[in-house]
């Protein structure tokens, strides 16, 4: 029965990973940019929430009203003024710049907030749980997290499918040059893509900040989890990414059950297995176009 418990906890955790992963996958889809500072940017979101909670006395959930716009603007500015300048000249410049940003962000956070682990306190909801059977209790907070994750993903899916801007993103993803010929200002569009990606990452960062503690150095681990969810799920599919996040979550909770040191490793091993046996991802039928 413990297995069932682990699977349920893992699925709930997976929603959160999927939120992280979606941001990564949007910016890769639209501008072929792999952002090595992705995890660190999510840590910034958690610290912005921390400041909102500490200084303004906001509830962590309510802090999202502040954190999401802040990250949206940060994303727009970062793309507009820094990353847009890396897009000519192959894959090396964006990689180097985002890697440099990762180091800058980690050390700035370290300088401002110290290396101590911090957490966001959401109060009683963190411990409340529904007891399904004597062995299986499902926490309200993890459930809320999954509901929020699915809602955000569904919203993004609708946005990409039904709105003109969403179509612009997909058109740019298909053929950047042809999209420009339609009158699309690709620099503006790219900046909006990173803004939207960081807004979703903001949600993920705050929820993860409530769930576990964070410190300035946890960004790379989060980048890796997000990345694994994307690859396990298969590139270019939001629901695939959700499934990928869930597979990763389940692997980690089951790994943790075997030995605490194996949690992360189990996730990595599932990722490597997917790479060997299903390089296009578990949930994509055909080869990626």
């Amino acid at each position, binding site marked *: 029965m413990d297995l069932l418990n682990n699977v349920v906890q893992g699925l709930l955790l997976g929603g959160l990973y999927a939120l992280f992963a979606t941001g990564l996958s949007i910016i890769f889809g639209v501008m072929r940019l792999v952002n090595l500072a992705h995890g660190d940017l999510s840590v910034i979101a958690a610290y912005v929430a921390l400041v909102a909670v500490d200084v303004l006395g906001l509830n962590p959930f309510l802090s999202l009203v502040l954190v999401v716009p802040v990250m949206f603007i940060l994303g727009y500015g970062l793309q507009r003024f820094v990353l847009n300048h890396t897009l000519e000249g192959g894959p090396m410049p964006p990689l180097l710049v985002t890697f440099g940003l990762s180091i800058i962000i980690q050390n700035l956070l370290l300088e401002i907030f110290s290396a101590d682990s911090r957490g966001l306190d959401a109060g009683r909801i963190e411990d409340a749980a529904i007891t399904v059977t004597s062995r299986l209790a499902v926490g309200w907070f993890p459930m809320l997290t999954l509901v929020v994750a699915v809602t955000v993903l569904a919203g993004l899916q609708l946005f990409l499918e039904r709105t003109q801007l969403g*179509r612009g993103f997909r058109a740019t993803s298909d053929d950047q040059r*042809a999209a420009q*010929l339609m009158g699309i200002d690709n620099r503006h569009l790219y900046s909006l893509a990173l803004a939207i990606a960081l807004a979703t990452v903001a949600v993920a960062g705050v929820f993860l900040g409530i769930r576990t503690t964070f410190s300035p150095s946890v960004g790379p681990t989060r980048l890796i989890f997000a990345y694994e969810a994307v690859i396990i799920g298969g590139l270019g599919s939001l629901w695939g990414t959700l499934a990928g996040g869930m597979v990763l979550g389940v692997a980690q909770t089951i790994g943790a059950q075997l030995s605490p040191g194996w949690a992360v490793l189990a996730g990595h091993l599932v990722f490597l297995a997917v790479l060997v046996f299903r390089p296009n991802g578990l949930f994509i039928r055909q080869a990626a*176009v």
Partner: protein
Amino acid sequence: MSLLSLTDINSRYGTFQALFGVELRVDEGEIVAVIGANGAGKSTMLKTVVGIMRSPTGEVRFAGRPVGHLPVHQRVSLGMSLVPEGRRVFPSLTVRENLLVGGWVKRPGPWTVTKILQLFPLLERRIDHPAGNLSGGEQQALAIGRGLMANPRLLMLDEVSLGLAPIVVRHLYAAIPAIVEAGTTILIVEQDIGQALSVADRVYCFLEGKVALSGRPRELTREQIAAAYFGV
């Protein structure tokens, strides 16, 4: 008044100069064709007009103002539309979505999705299919329709006939009078000389990056055109 005029255009790819002092003019309501062999600089000229490439010298004027310093998307907003060589439809978007993205720049004018489907009825039954699944001819019709969705004053067509069966090409060219009638000026780049001369009011022949010949099709002789085309 001329809608588009190029003076002293010398576009280059790095160290390779593709155009040499090109002068060209398109008047409102005209159909102008640019013919020439592969590598003569025809596509480079279109890229320079739309802003994918820039000429270090000279001037590109559109609708009475210099546009040489503007980025592509601003030139498109001013009312020029390029249907690129190789069609380049958005393969993962449906036909309808391709057309809607074509209307990204909202300029007033007659063209809507419905009007495009009347112009190219073959697209009707494919409307919700991904454009990547379309045949070459259907994709070319879609690319032209997508270019019209912005209601451009000038529609530029780059090698419409490339890789298509003659009957398909005739079908596509049959749509051109309707486009002109709706108030759009057309600049065609074409390797298929016969097709180009049959619709054009005026023609330019490019040879090795230069304008080798220009005039009205009826006033040019076969020999003149052959000489300008092949450089013999």
